[in-house]
């Protein structure tokens, strides 16, 4: 029995170490961003907002934030729309080649980003769509739609198969049922998908770097800063990026979790 307890405690300590490893870089980045030293180490320097001052006064940073915001919001809307349509099709219909249809929908995350970046750069240049802000939006929508599809499909899984027929039966056409029943039912998942896809787009740098031309997003700017030299501004920008994406992901997850609780109470 004591043996059992020892194993249990060793495993718990190990678990804490793993989580420490996962969160160390995130915490370090936040701590360093408030640290006065140019190259942070132990012992830490004094508390300072100088790096935040620096980025707030840098017009390039503001331009990148604007580009990133535009890209991630547009991507989120497009990817969530496509993801919703795909998830609904999978939920409602059976047809020939459905396997191929789903493979096409879910394949992009399995292809390394660097390969997609090259392929998209070449293809978008070929069709004359490279180097614009909307080029990034197009490419990010390809990457993000599968995430949206997965989140919304999980929610639809919890929808009573008779809910749509019940609405038709009460006089709602298919389109009206979509608006009055399917969309209200999936709303938490739709918001969740919007947040997740916005976060993915907001963090993506490989594809954006290849095809953005002069329209740098925030991660692309970070990539270019760190390629040059060590600049603690990156920590300040990084903290801002973390806070943005973590907020989006946490909102998304809370929506996913609450809806699970609700449906649990339902049955």
């Amino acid at each position: 029995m004591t043996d059992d307890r020892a194993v249990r405690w060793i495993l718990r300590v190990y678990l804490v170490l793993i989580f420490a490893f996962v969160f160390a870089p995130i915490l370090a980045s936040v701590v360093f961003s408030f640290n006065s030293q140019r190259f942070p180490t132990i012992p830490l320097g004094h508390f300072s907002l100088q790096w935040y001052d620096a980025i707030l006064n840098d017009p390039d940073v503001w331009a990148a934030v604007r580009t990133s915001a535009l890209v991630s919001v547009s991507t989120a809307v497009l990817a969530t729309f496509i993801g919703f349509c795909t998830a609904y099709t999978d939920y409602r219909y059976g047809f020939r080649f459905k396997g191929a249809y789903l493979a096409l929908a879910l394949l992009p995350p399995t292809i390394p980003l660097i390969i997609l970046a090259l392929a998209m750069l070449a293809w978008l240049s070929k069709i004359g769509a490279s180097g614009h802000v909307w080029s990034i939006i197009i490419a990010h929508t390809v990457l993000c739609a599968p995430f949206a599809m997965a989140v919304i499909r999980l929610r639809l899984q919890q929808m009573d198969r008779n809910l749509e027929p019940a609405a038709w039966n009460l006089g709602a056409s298919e389109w009206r049922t979509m608006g009055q029943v399917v969309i209200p039912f999936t709303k938490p998942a739709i918001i969740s998908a919007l947040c997740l896809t916005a976060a993915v787009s907001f963090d993506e740098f490989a594809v954006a770097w290849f095809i953005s031309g002069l329209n740098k997003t925030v991660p692309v700017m970070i990539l270019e800063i760190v390629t040059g030299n060590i600049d603690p501004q990156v920590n300040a920008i990084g903290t801002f990026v973390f806070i943005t994406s973590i907020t989006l992901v946490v909102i998304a997850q809370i929506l996913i979790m609450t809806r699970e609780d609700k449906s649990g109470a339902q049955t």
Partner: protein
Amino acid sequence: MADAAHGAGLAKKGGGRPDGYALFFRLPMVFWQLAFFIGPLVFMIAMSFFLVKNYRMVEAFEFANWAKMLGRGYFWDSFLLTLGMATLSTLVVTALAFPASYALAFKVSPTVRRWAIFFLIVPFFTSYLVRTFSWYVILAESGVINAILGFIGLGPYIMLNTKFGTIVGYMTLTLPLVVILQTLSLAHVDRSLIEAAHNLGCGRLRTVFTVIVPLAKVGLIIGAVFCFILSFGDFVSPYYLGGSKPPTLPILIIDTTKSGQQWPRAAVVAIMMMITLLTVAFTAIALAYRRRVK
């Protein structure tokens, strides 16, 4: 059979032609992915046969790029390095993740498990680039770790621009995902089988390797495959933490693309990467399922 039809609502399975409503939801993804996913990949394959003359790409069907890239020693150096590092990363991450996943699956309450998975999903959607840069500062010769080791009279150790640095970077990218996938597959193992093994006098460690691992095999292998794909395709860690000497294949793609407009040669590298990934993924998954059926 009747039930399947009930489930479909209005019977639209087979036979019936999809109406406008059905097509409205079916077509956007098909259109988008054909135009901006399949299109680029197919074009990239075609591009690998194009020629570059005076810094301009000329459409052609020549094997010059293939001959040039595959005939060079440095390509194969990169190839073997990338393959080796991705394999090493897969083994290290799988081994390091397993005890944590085991603990999450069997030694904590479901609530703790749910929160743990919640916290493991968060980094997956946060900037990998900034996390890698953070490691750069932590692992540097005058960085945090060496400063701490200095207090107890050790070091400094060189950790940047080494294979160790690269692996730390790969772990940052893949460890949370692998722990999640392993935990989910372990949590599905039937507990009564484990108790049965204990009843039959099978020791703890033996139970883990003769009962639990075989039962959770498919999930464990899928986790490893994802780890391999992500490590194989990552350019940030080998570049910033590994020093890029020699470059891995993703870095080779960047160098070839960004300098001298040699896109067709970069395409050759990309295609070689795809072929490798597909081979590894299919082999691993085929193996996982074949053994399981036995």
